[in-house]
């Protein structure tokens, strides 16, 4: 039960990079289209509220890790709730992440078809990405952690350059009127991004292989703050470019890069931007797939998780391909269903789990002394 399936070790910095990519990976594609619908001019405030949920997720993961070091979420569930209820809850989490990743990959494939390769079948795009992610998962967490150290800096750098190049076209007065209808619209706008931020709950699958787990809290929160800063920055620049009707665009940031044109030479860089974003998506998908594969192996109490990599990759492909008829449904799903689905699984349930675990630990510690 406590046998470690993963022997690799990653550092807290690598963990932080992974967390950053987990959230930003797919979010950067569509941000801030869904936020803008409710928040209008205050859409840049929404990620700040939403980041609270990221912090909760990080806090819960680390709290559980302190009580059950060396155990992932799936393993600790059986410890906390007993064998059968723990397994059932674990299954629910595995299905949740399976669907999350399937839909994420679908989003990615739709994005590529819509922007760069209009005549390529989405099945090919999804299959190639799942193939690459599976290779990474097969290699273990160490490889993913190290790749993130190459990819994430590149990713952030590209983003900052884009923001910098867009600055000349930004009109600061579009920021106003600020908080015209009070704080409520920006809170409404935070409903969708809280689900993205809460994906940092995946930290629970990474923590057991951390070499310096004392720094986990610091770097975990740093990742959440970095994500928040990135999203605020992205929302601000989009707001200053387009005004408050951003929700019309499907991929606002990508459309914004069409503004970039320097010396009649450096222009039309969307394809390059798409290519860079693929890197972030890759980290995200491989980490979620890693969590599902590792979690399933632990759920089934297998000795090795590698035989599961390819089958689970295939299941993800099917989920992404069959569960959604078209992009409109996916957009609808991500703005109406996913936020509450995520709220349940990534915020409310984890808090409940942590609470029960806390009671259990206290009961078992207090038992002998009082009795």
């Amino acid at each position, binding site marked *: 039960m406590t046998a470690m399936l993963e022997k690799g070790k990653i*550092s807290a*910095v*690598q963990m932080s990079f992974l967390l950053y990519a987990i959230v930003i990976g797919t979010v950067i594609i569509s941000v801030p289209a869904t936020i803008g619908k409710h928040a209008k001019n205050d859409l840049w405030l929404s990620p700040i509220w939403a980041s609270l949920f990221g912090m909760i997720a990080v806090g819960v993961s680390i709290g559980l890790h302190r009580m059950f070091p060396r155990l992932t979420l799936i393993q600790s569930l059986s410890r906390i709730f007993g064998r059968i209820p723990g397994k059932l809850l674990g299954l629910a989490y595995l299905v949740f992440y399976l669907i999350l990743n399937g839909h994420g990959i679908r989003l990615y494939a739709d994005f*590529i078809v819509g922007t*760069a*390769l209009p005549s*390529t079948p989405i099945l*090919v*795009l999804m299959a*190639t*990405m799942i193939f*690459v992610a599976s*290779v*990474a998962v097969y*290699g*273990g967490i*160490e*490889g*993913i*952690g*190290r*790749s*993130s*150290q*190459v*990819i994430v800096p590149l990713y952030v750098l590209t983003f900052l350059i884009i923001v910098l190049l867009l600055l000349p076209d930004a009109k600061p007065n579009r920021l106003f009127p600020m908080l015209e209808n009070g704080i409520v619209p920006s809170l409404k706008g935070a409903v969708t991004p809280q689900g993205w931020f809460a994906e940092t709950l995946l930290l629970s699958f990474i923590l057991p292989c951390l070499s310096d787990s004392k720094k986990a809290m610091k770097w975990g929160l740093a990742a959440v703050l970095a994500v928040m800063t990135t999203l605020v920055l992205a929302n601000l620049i989009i707001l200053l470019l387009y005004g408050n009707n951003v929700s019309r665009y499907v991929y606002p940031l990508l459309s914004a890069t069409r503004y970039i044109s320097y010396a*009649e*030479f450096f*222009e*039309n*860089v969307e*394809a*390059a931007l*798409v*290519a*860079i974003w*693929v*890197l972030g998506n*890759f980290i995200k998908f491989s980490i979620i797939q890693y969590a599902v594969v590792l979690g399933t192996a632990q759920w089934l109490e297998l000795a090795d998780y590698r035989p599961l990599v390819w089958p689970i990759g295939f299941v993800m492909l099917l989920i992404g391909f069959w569960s959604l008829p078209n992009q409109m449904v996916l957009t609808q799903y991500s703005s109406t269903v996913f936020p509450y689905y995520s709220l349940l699984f990534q915020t409310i349930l984890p808090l409940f789990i942590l609470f029960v675990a806390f009671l259990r630990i206290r009961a078992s510690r207090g038992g002998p002394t009082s009795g």
Partner: protein
Amino acid sequence: MPRVCMIRQGVRGMGGFFRKSSGTNGNRGSEDRNAGTKGNVPASSLSSDHDANVEQLRQIYANCADVVFRPFLIGGVTKATVIYIEGLTSVKDLNENFLGVLMDPSAEDLSIQSLLESKVRISKVEKVKSCEDCVAALSSGYPVLLAEGQSDGMALGLSAWDKRQIEEPSAEASVRGPREGFTETIGVSVSQLRRILKTPALKIEALKIGSLSRTQVMIAYLEGIVDKTVLDEVRERLKRIRIDGILESSYLEEMIEDAPYSPFPQVKTTERPDTACSGLLEGRVVVLTEGTPFAMVVPTTLFSLLQSQEDYYQHYIVSTAIRWLRYLFVALSLLLPSLYVAVLTFHQEMVPTSLLITMAASRESVPFPALVEALLMEVTFEVLREAGVRLPKQVGAAVSIVGALVIGQAAVQAGIVSAPMVIVVAITGIASFMVPRYVVGLAIRMLRFPMMLLAGSLGLLGIMLGLILILIHLSNLRSFGVPYLSPVAPLKPGELKDVAIRAPWWAMDTRPHMSENDRLVRQPPGQRPGPHRKKQ
């Protein structure tokens, strides 16, 4: 555990012999594990019967015309035979300093022991106790003396054979820096290391690999600086090898690699003693192989393979700039043709309009799609390069003329390939020669082809997927336990001073973390030069 037994046997046997002759350390490395597999040499010890011993050796060396048996009488009385292999022994020294003295009848005391002590002017004399020892001694050029009434033979340190002079290494030329390279003679190579690092901390362990070639392999390292686990790993992997012959260090390389299916070299080969010593100073292990001038430095990382020794001899600002240029062109040599294919096939909008018009005009008459054109040209380039390398020098020039004329001009004029494609191939070719290590260049050049296929089918996305695959592979790769992408991933900020830039020597205070607990400090800090300041 038969292996352990064999090691012990070896130390007692021939290994012990070589330990004294060539290494300074000599505790653990020497061994002769293949003794049991040698087949035709009985491990029997020598008897006191001189004729029987000689007969036994004659049988072992039947049909070996180059082995000389010279019977004589010591002082005109005692029967004796000296045996040596022609070409491996200094016959002049043997005649003058040995046979001349022993055959002199005027000597009063004729016991071999006293003759050796008082008359024979040879600095190194070893006892041999078995036929096996005799064979080992003879193979390394030591004449063996067998005498009547003696159950031990004498091996005389008179080995001498023709060897290549020390020359400038041809594959690793430098403008500034030492000009000498290793040679095929391992003793000379070791002495070159010893001449640079004059410290007893430089340890050299010897072992023999190859059941037939009996190739001498030496492991050199700096005690106290080397990472013990890496050293043990190297030793262990070398001892595991079972092979009949080693002709080049690449045999060893392929037998000790971490990931044998990887196209990337996990061992740094060098012909230069200074490169080997810089590896030693950084805590790496150097493996020298008899019969080849190429030494192996382990563990190695991708970035150390992208560095040239001359980076450290040029001004550090220049070296830093050259390193950046090199990184850029390494990326280009991998990506340029595939980027060209991807942009032309899928993302024409990325090209500035005027450039696009020029390119379209030149491609107008080309009958192939960009991918086919690129593959065609890249394959042709590889063929020309390979043909040029293997051919004799005189013919090589002809190949390059034909290549330049046919590919460069005629093909473009005939409208079979476009001029931009030729430029792309040419830049890629030049870029791949920017890599200071030939083998890394080869790996990257090979990976160019799958990248082109990906670019032709999925555009920039395909290139990205290919890059991700390469990145995953490199992230998972280790060379003797050290991550291949270190110090970038896993990130070690302190070590970037020798990767992102080339820091001046007064700032290179620490060694790379080849291990965590070994001596890291290279020199005291704060040595930045400047005008002399008087202490107040």
